[in-house]
């Protein structure tokens, strides 16, 4: 099996064998699971289907979450997009799709944790919007998910993908880094450019805290997914233009781990500080827990 622990390992082998990161990850999974390529590909293709279904469901739904805090904003944004807007259609689609998937998640719909449920809108938002702009085939979209998985595996190996361990940088930061690398390869960029996109996207979300109101995956999570999807596209475009991160991808990943360790526990998914403890956050918590406690 091609061994890699760091992203620089992954890039070195990819360049040597003239493969994409996506190809490398398909090979990796084939060896790891002792399955054939078709089975591994079908598994990821199934994930893409669930992502697309969640986008469609979320765009057309005005359903609220169980708590009533979130829901209906993807549809609202879809109406707004029919006008001209400011950012242009690809960024707007990324926002809308990310909101849609994240709202489906909050309303107990079916999603793909990518890497987590709290950050499940970023990757589909970015790759589906970019895929439309780039006229990607379904195969290219599935390959993008494999690229994203490669980034996530390296982050998981050296840092964390869990908000409880690393704050929201570990969830939404990782998701944006994964999406940025995926979009680069979908656009025909090199593995090195994918690594640069990973670094650029992740760097700008380092230190992001996890402070969900009332302990629920809703506020600020849902809207943060929309920001994360566009964030990934910004990083991808920078990398595709040839802009490089001064700090290499693996060092950014290590920094995310160190920053996660330094974050106080109160800002790591415990809802003991930050937005969760604002007057409004506390009022919502009191209302939900007061009414619904056992």
């Amino acid at each position, binding site marked *: 099996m091609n061994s890699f622990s760091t992203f620089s390992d992954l890039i070195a082998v990819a360049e040597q064998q003239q493969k994409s990161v996506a190809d490398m990850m398909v090979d990796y999974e084939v060896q790891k699971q002792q399955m054939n390529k078709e089975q591994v590909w079908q*598994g990821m293709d199934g994930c893409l289907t669930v992502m697309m279904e969640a986008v469609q469901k979320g765009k057309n739904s005005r359903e609220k*979450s169980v708590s009533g805090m979130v829901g209906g904003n993807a549809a609202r944004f879809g109406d707004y997009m029919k006008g001209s807007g400011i950012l242009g259609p690809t960024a707007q689609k990324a926002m809308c799709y990310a909101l849609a998937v994240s709202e489906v998640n909050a309303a*107990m719909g079916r999603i793909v944790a990518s890497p987590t449920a709290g950050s499940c809108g970023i990757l589909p938002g970015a790759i589906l919007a970019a895929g439309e702009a780039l006229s990607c085939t379904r195969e290219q979209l599935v390959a993008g998910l494999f690229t994203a998985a490669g980034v996530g*595996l390296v982050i*998981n190996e050296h840092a964390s993908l869990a908000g409880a361990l690393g704050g929201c940088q570990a969830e939404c930061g990782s998701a944006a880094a*994964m999406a940025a690398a995926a979009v680069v390869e979908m656009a025909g960029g090199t593995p090195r450019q994918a690594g640069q996109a990973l670094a650029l996207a992740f760097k700008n979300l380092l230190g992001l805290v996890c402070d969900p109101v009332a302990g629920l995956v809703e506020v600020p999570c849902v809207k943060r997914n929309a920001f994360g999807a566009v964030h990934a596209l910004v990083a991808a475009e920078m990398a595709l233009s040839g802009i490089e991160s001064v700090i290499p991808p693996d060092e950014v990943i290590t920094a995310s781990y160190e920053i996660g360790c330094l974050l106080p526990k109160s800002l790591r998914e415990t809802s003991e500080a930050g937005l969760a403890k604002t007057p409004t956050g506390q009022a919502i918590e009191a209302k*939900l827990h007061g009414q619904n406690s056992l």
Partner: protein
Amino acid sequence: MKSVFDIIGPIMIGPSSSHTAGAARIGKLARAILGEAPTQATVKLHGSFAQTYLGHGTDKAIVAGLLGFSADDERIPEALTLAAQAGLAIEFVKADLGDVHPNTACIEMVGQSGRKAQVMGSSIGGGSVLITKINGYDVELTGEYATLITIHEDKPGIVALVTHILAQEAVNVAFMRVSRQERGAEALLILEADEPISHHAYELVAHLPKVKVAMLVSPI
């Protein structure tokens, strides 16, 4: 290193891999350990599960699991109604289960034949779970492997007989753990295997003289 599907995945019902998807898996494993459809269940919720279970649908997810649904089943939001229709009476209790993981539930069940089981499990992140107690015995069970569980007399040779049966069936043992409450009384064996364990092997184990109860749990 993990699988790509640990990163892109699991496919699940939202909103939380630990509070919803993991909770559903704990419920489904509990049902598998009971070995039949439960008709009554008391669910004790501890820590973060107790604090935020309603917003995360943890209650619905556990009940869905008890009904045999998987973590990606779109019927999870309607699980409480479906349980009532299926004749499953559920009670939720907020509990301090001691020095355990913050996302822990203890489920006491009565099955349709009157069989009882008590299963405690923790949702340890990303939809992964760990069953930590079965009927008061300390265990470590992930649900990711084909698992054989026996409750048997704590006498020499039983474990060897069980592993011999599996060896004959060409089943490779991945993990095994034996625990007991006191020497010479009753013991519990948990065996996780790489290959599926056939019904034939299960029957042979279940009919061993000193084995009181045998349970076969498929990967969940």
